[in-house]
């Protein structure tokens, strides 16, 4: 990393940002990574389905059909019906946007806070660094979804609160990664050069450090969306997230729990959908990591 | 062709060895038709710049080349038997027992999770099927042999508790545990401090005489060669360019590359004025390997004929050189003297 940087300094007047060369290589590598392309393709497919799908579903998600309660999959109802006779396929298509929304919203929220804290921590160091990182340690001391669970339990069960809770529990990972990368970038010679040219802290952070820590952020964000979807559906499954009759997949699974004996399809399909969407994000995340940041290990 | 009399004289004869690395779209010929011999009880130096293929040659002898590297041809005759015909199980009996190896990096070549004694003892347990207790006893002997101070204490220590020089002594102890007939030392002193380098070389030389081993010493340092070797093979871009006894190499080098190497050595007897002469240019990359003599692009004498590959030519004393200058086909200056011209230019 150091060599090209110094070389460029001698050619141009302005210190070069080593990132520019990296993006080209990144896209080249990403195109070669077939798994990542497949993951990305599925995510795009899910997003499109979430947007246009609801206009084409055979039934409305809330339409009940008392005659056809718990009907097994058939030509009329591809994934069968639930205990109110609602069409599961239609509900899944309508729930797609909720799942994606929860995943993206919570991670964008959590990542933003985490990145800001991580940069402040890494760039300024000292006491503020200690305070921030100790706080992150405390947040990480709650295992798994326990923190999100505790937050939702006091805020009350709703989709909004699930997003807040999941966001809070994803903050520490970003803060830690960004802090580490910031420390590493701060030591690069070209940052010294930029500072020597009289750039302000603000400018250095936004123009030079942020772009350089972007690859680990992107990788982590992708993987975090997968985790966030799992956590959020788990909270909904426990009755602490989306409330009925919202066609949220975790909540649908919770309904299906009571009919495992005679209508297992009610629990089967929402679960398969969660697996597929989480799998797509995990595959893409793995591929991005291989392409962007080979040194980063899980 | 190997005759019976040759094999009693030479412990190792390498014929036309070829080892290549295969990447997605090209074959990199790291070792490209290497031939040389190691006489019994002698030390042969294999000299070359990094990337010349000398380490790969040594790894090929023990068939330890990692994928994507692969031996693609040639013969490695050890005591008259071709090692390339042996099965993996047969090779395992040879590794560490008849042919041993010491590596360049003592810092990373020892397993960090086992004690020194365990790592030396493993050789005894593999080849002599001795008990743990016996292996421990013999390991202690080995540590004494390689001159490690307070061996009773060191034997139970982990590699991270030892200095670089001591670790290399341990590596030598591991290598000698099987009482091998041939020791391959791949740049054994490169990673060490200068003072330690001399000690390790002295140790190898001393042990060679005491145990009557043959040694293949791989190095880029001609100074090391002058002090330790009986014969020298000079390697360039996967090929041997010159093979001769050590006296001839230094007094009467034939190949322009050898001459260049010797001239870039700092002289012992006088101060130098200005820079040491260096060989201009760099080792050709595998993708732009010249068709003819590999050294031609950097050779001050290169002529028309150098665009075709010269063969190794053996003189009456058994010394070999791969250069057109010493053939009848030579089309350059008939009066050329590689040593004179290099000095004045």
């Amino acid at each position, binding site marked *: 990393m150091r060599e090209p940087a110094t070389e460029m300094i001698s050619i141009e007047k302005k210190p070069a940002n080593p990132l520019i060369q990296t993006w080209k290589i990144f896209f080249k590598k990403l195109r070669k990574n077939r798994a990542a392309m497949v993951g990305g393709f599925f995510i795009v497919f899910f997003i499109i389905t979430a947007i246009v799908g609801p206009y084409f579903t055979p039934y409305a998600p809330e339409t009940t059909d008392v005659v056809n309660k718990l009907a097994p999959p058939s030509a009329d109802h591809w994934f069968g019906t639930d205990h109110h006779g609602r069409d599961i396929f239609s509900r899944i298509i309508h729930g797609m946007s909720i799942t994606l929304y929860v995943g993206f919203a919570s991670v964008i929220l959590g990542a933003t806070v985490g990145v800001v804290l991580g940069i402040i921590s890494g760039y300024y160091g000292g006491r503020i660094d200690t305070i921030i990182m*100790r*706080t992150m*340690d*405390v947040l990480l*001391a*709650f*295992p*798994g*979804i*326990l923190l999100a*669970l*505790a*937050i939702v*339990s*006091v*805020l*009350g069960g709703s989709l909004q609160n699930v997003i807040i809770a999941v966001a809070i529990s994803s903050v520490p990972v970003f803060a830690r990664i960004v802090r580490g990368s910031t420390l590493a970038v701060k030591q690069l010679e070209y940052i010294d050069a930029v500072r020597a040219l009289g750039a302000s802290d603000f400018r250095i952070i936004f123009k030079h450090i942020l772009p350089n820590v972007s690859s680990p952020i992107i990788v982590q964000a992708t993987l975090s969306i997968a985790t966030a979807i799992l956590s959020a559906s*788990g909270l909904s*499954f*426990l009755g*602490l997230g989306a409330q009925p009759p919202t066609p949220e997949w*975790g909540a649908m*699974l919770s309904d*299906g*729990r009571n009919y*495992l*004996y005679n209508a297992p399809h009610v*629990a*089967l399909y*929402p*679960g398969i959908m*969660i*697996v597929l969407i989480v*799998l797509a994000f*995990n*595959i893409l995340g793995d591929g991005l990591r291989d392409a962007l940041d080979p040194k980063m*290990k*899980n | 062709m190997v005759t019976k009399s040759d094999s009693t004289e030479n412990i190792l004869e390498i014929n036309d060895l070829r080892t290549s690395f295969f990447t997605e779209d090209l074959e990199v010929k790291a070792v490209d038709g290497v031939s040389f011999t190691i006489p019994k009880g002698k030390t042969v130096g294999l000299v070359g710049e990094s990337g010349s293929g000398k380490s790969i040659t040594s790894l090929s002898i023990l068939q*330890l080349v*990692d994928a994507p590297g692969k031996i693609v041809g040639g013969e490695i005759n050890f005591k008259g038997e071709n090692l390339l015909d042996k099965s993996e199980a047969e090779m*395992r009996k040879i590794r*560490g027992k008849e042919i*041993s190896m010491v*590596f360049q990096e003592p*810092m*990373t*070549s*020892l*397993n*960090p*999770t086992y004690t020194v004694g365990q790592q030396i003892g493993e*050789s005894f347990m*593999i080849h002599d099927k001795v008990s743990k207790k016996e292996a421990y006893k013999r390991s202690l002997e080995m540590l004494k042999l390689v001159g490690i101070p307070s061996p009773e204490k060191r034997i139970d220590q*982990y*590699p*991270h508790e030892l200095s670089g020089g001591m670790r290399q002594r341990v*590596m030598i102890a*591991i*290598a000698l545990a*099987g009482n091998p007939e041939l020791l391959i030392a791949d740049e054994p002193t490169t990673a060490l401090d200068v003072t330690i380098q001399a000690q390790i070389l002295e140790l190898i030389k001393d042990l060679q005489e005491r145990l009557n081993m043959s040694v293949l010493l791989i190095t880029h340092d001609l100074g090391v060669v002058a002090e330790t070797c009986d014969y020298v093979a000079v390697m360039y871009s996967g090929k041997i360019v010159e093979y001769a006894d050590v006296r001839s190499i230094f007094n009467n080098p034939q190949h322009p590359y050898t001459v260049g190497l010797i001239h870039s050595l700092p002289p012992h007897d006088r101060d130098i004025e200005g820079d040491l002469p260096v060989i201009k240019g760099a080792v050709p990359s595998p993708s732009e390997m010249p068709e003819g003599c590999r050294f031609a692009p950097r050779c001050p004498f290169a002529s028309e004929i150098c665009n075709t590959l010269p063969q190794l030519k053996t003189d009456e004393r058994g010394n070999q050189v791969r250069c057109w200058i010493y053939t009848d086909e030579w089309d350059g200056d008939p009066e050329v003297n590689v040593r004179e011209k290099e000095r004045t230019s």
Partner: protein
Amino acid sequence: MLTYIIRRLLQTIPVIIGVSLIVFSLMHLIPGDPAQIMAGESAPKEQVENIRERLGLNDSYPVQYWNYIRDAAKGDLGSSIRSGRDVTEEIGGRFWVTVELAIYSTALSVFLGLIAGIVSATKKYSWQDVTLMVLALFGLSMPNFWLGLMLIKWFAIGFDLPSWIPFIENTSWFKPSGWGSFQQVVLPVITLGTGGAAIIARMTRSSMLEVIDQDYIRTARAKGAKERVVIYRHALKNALIPVVTVVGLQFGALLGGAVLTETVFAINGLGKLIIDAIQARDFPVVQGSVLVVSLLFVLVNMIVDITYRYLNKRIDLN
């Protein structure tokens, strides 16, 4: 080493204080009057006042917090609003169920994860490697509560097998709920252990691949060691060291994940206690359980860090 252990112990103190502070604050983050909410919407005024008094909600926050950690240090986590029993007592009976579940699941995930990781690494890019890594990716992407439901459907409720299969008529082999007997333990342990197995398998694979490239592996081969010895004696021992950390983290994650698994299988552990308490708005119990689980996690992490440090001391070459 001793100084590291002491330093690591000292580092734990602010974390424990932080955790207790957050757990304490939970009660005050409740929108509205916590006493009213806990008592119920239509509770008489005296009852609300009674709860307020019992929880010390009339004191200032610092006084409340001080009382809370002082009592907690003595093992007094307050009493349940619902049952009136001591929270410590409520937790006590269920604590070991959850720990047992987490230990069995960790054991399963270590066992499966290591085997899969080693096979994958030693047969890099083979069909076995590809199959195992695809499975691991699925394991990683599966909501464990859904896996639990499916396991109940397939192996507790079971389905009838075709008559040409001898001896076995159906697959209702295990029990769908409860904890204790072998038939009750199997499905929850698989449910909870699968995700961990996937993570450990991936970690072991990458760690093994890194170690196999090391110089000392070549040294072992040069000694004439058999490939099996090279892999298991020389590579695995080094490769396992980073895996230790993951196993520790995994154990903690399982403590958290147990909430869902215990709900699915109706196991009376800490996880289900938390959920039941949340639904009953029994906040002292929620606080106490979350505190206990988190402190256990902090403790496990500390032990893992110290172990890792001890093992890694030798690894750290330069």
